[in-house]
C-alpha cells in the first residue's frame, strides 16, 4: 500500500498532503505544549519498533502475505496525536531511506497508513469510553475492530486515490483491494489484540498513560495482578 511516485495525479497528491500535514502539524504543536523532553527518545524507539514490526509478515490466503501496519497499536499505546507523528516519521523514513513509497505521494501515504488509523482508532476509543462500560473486553474489541477498520479504510482510500488519478479503474480495483485487505485486516486485528492484552497483563500503566482513562482500574485478569 506504499504508493510510489507517479501513481497519483498531481492534484490528488497535493490534496492528500493537506490533511496529512495538518494532522502532523497539529500533533507537533500539541506535543510542544504537553510533551516533556524525556518522552522524545521513547517516541523515537517506538517509531523504530513500528518500522520493525512492519516486517512481520503473516500468511493471507493463496500464498500471499500481508504485514502489520501498526497504526491502531500506536494509537492505543501513544494516544492518537503522538501516533500520527510517529507514523508520519515511519512512512517518511521508508520513503527517504528505503525508496518505499514516493516522495511526491508522501502526503497520501502518511494519511492512508498513519493519520486515518491513528485518529480513527483514537476517536473510537474515546467514544467507546463514553457509551460503553470500561472493561477489558470492550477495550480489546474496540482496538481489534479499529485495527481491522483502519486497514480497510487505508485500502479504500488508496484505491480511491489511484482511481481518481486514472492509474487504475476504480470499480475493478476496489473489490480486489478490499478483498485482500479484509484478510490482512484480520491479521492486523489479531496481532493488535494479542499485543494489547499482553500489555494489559504486564504493564497496564502504559495504556493508562496514553490517556485512555480509567481502563487500568477496570478488573484485569488474575495474571495481571500477579505480574504488576
Amino acid at each position, binding site marked *: 500500500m506504499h504508493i*510510489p511516485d507517479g501513481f497519483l495525479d498531481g492534484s490528488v497528491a497535493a490534496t492528500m498532503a493537506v490533511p496529512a500535514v495538518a494532522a502532523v502539524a497539529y500533533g507537533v504543536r500539541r506535543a510542544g505544549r504537553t510533551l516533556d523532553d524525556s518522552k522524545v527518545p*521513547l517516541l523515537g*524507539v517506538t*517509531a523504530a519498533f513500528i*518500522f520493525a514490526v512492519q*516486517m512481520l509478515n503473516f500468511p493471507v490466503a493463496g500464498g500471499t502475505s*500481508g504485514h*502489520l501496519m501498526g497504526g491502531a497499536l500506536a494509537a492505543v499505546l501513544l494516544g492518537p496525536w503522538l501516533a500520527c507523528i510517529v507514523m508520519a516519521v515511519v512512512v517518511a523514513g521508508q520513503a527517504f531511506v*528505503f525508496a518505499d513509497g514516493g516522495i511526491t505521494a508522501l502526503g497520501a501515504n502518511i494519511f492512508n497508513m498513519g493519520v486515518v488509523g491513528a485518529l480513527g482508532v483514537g476517536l473510537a476509543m474515546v467514544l467507546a469510553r463514553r457509551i460503553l462500560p470500561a472493561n477489558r473486553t470492550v477495550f480489546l474489541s474496540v482496538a481489534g475492530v479499529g485495527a481491522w477498520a483502519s486497514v480497510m479504510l487505508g485500502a479504500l482510500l488508496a484505491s480511491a486515490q489511484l482511481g481518481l488519478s486514472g492509474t487504475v479503474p476504480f470499480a475493478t480495483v476496489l473489490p480486489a483491494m478490499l478483498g485482500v485487505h479484509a484478510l490482512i485486516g484480520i491479521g492486523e486485528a489479531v496481532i*493488535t489484540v494479542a499485543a494489547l492484552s499482553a500489555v494489559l497483563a504486564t504493564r497496564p500503566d502504559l495504556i493508562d498513560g496514553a490517556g485512555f482513562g480509567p481502563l487500568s482500574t477496570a478488573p484485569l485478569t488474575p495474571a495481571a495482578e500477579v505480574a504488576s
Partner: protein
Amino acid sequence: MSGSHDHAGGGPVGDLTSRVHRLDPRAKIVGLVAVTLVGVSTPISAWEVWVACGLVLAAVAAAGRVPARVIWVRARVVLPLVIVVAAFIPFFRGGEVVASLGPLDVSREGLEVLGSVAAKATIGTVSAVLLGATTSVPAIIRGLETMRVPRLLTLIAAFMYRYLFVIAEELRRMRSALASRAYRPRTALQAAALGRMATALFLRTFSRGERIYLAMLARGYSGRMPRLDPLRLARADAVFVGLILLTLLPLRVIS
C-alpha cells in the same frame, strides 16, 4: 501491502569520497526531489523530459560511482506495483484497441497509463535511491532539520534510525526462537503469537527508551543536540542544483 523492508537497507555506497557524496545534504535533497517533481509532473506527450531526467540521474550515479547493481536491488521494491497496474490494463475500456489476448482487449489508453506510471515511478524511486546511496541518513535528517522540518520530527527520525537495526535484530532473534518452537502460521488467525511477541518487543523497546534518556541526561543533555560541524553550502552545491535545474526546467517548459 507489499512493502518488505528486509532488503539490504540504506546507507551510502559507491565512492564515498566522490564529489556527489561530499555535497551538502540539502543540495542533494533539493536537486533529486526536483528531478522527481519534474518527472512526475510531465505528461506522456512530453516524454523527452523523462529521458532527460534519466540522463541526469545516470550522470549523478556515475559521478558518485554508485554501482548499477545497488540501484537495481534498492529500486526493485517498486516493480511489483508496476506489474499490478499492468494487470489492470485490459480492463480499460474505450480508446483504440491495439491487441487482443483471448477475450481481453488491450487499449492504447491502457498502455499509455502503464508507460507513464512506469516511467514516473522509475524516476522517483531511482532519485530516492541515489539520495540514500550518496548521503548518510543522519546527514539527510540534519539537512531536513535546517530546512525547517519541525525539530520533534527530526529528533524522532534520528532516534528511529539509530535504534532501527538494534530493534530489528532483536525481532529477528525472537522470530527464530518462535520458529525453533515449530511456530509456522498458516492463516491470519494464527498470528496472535506474533502479537505477544510484538508486546515483548515493545516492552523491551519502552524500557530501552527510558534508559536512553537517562544516559543522555548523564552526558549533559539539555534539550538540544550539540552539533560539532555546522552545514555550509559551498559553490559545488550551487553548481549541482543549478546544473539539474538548468538541464530540466527549460526542457520541461518548452515541451
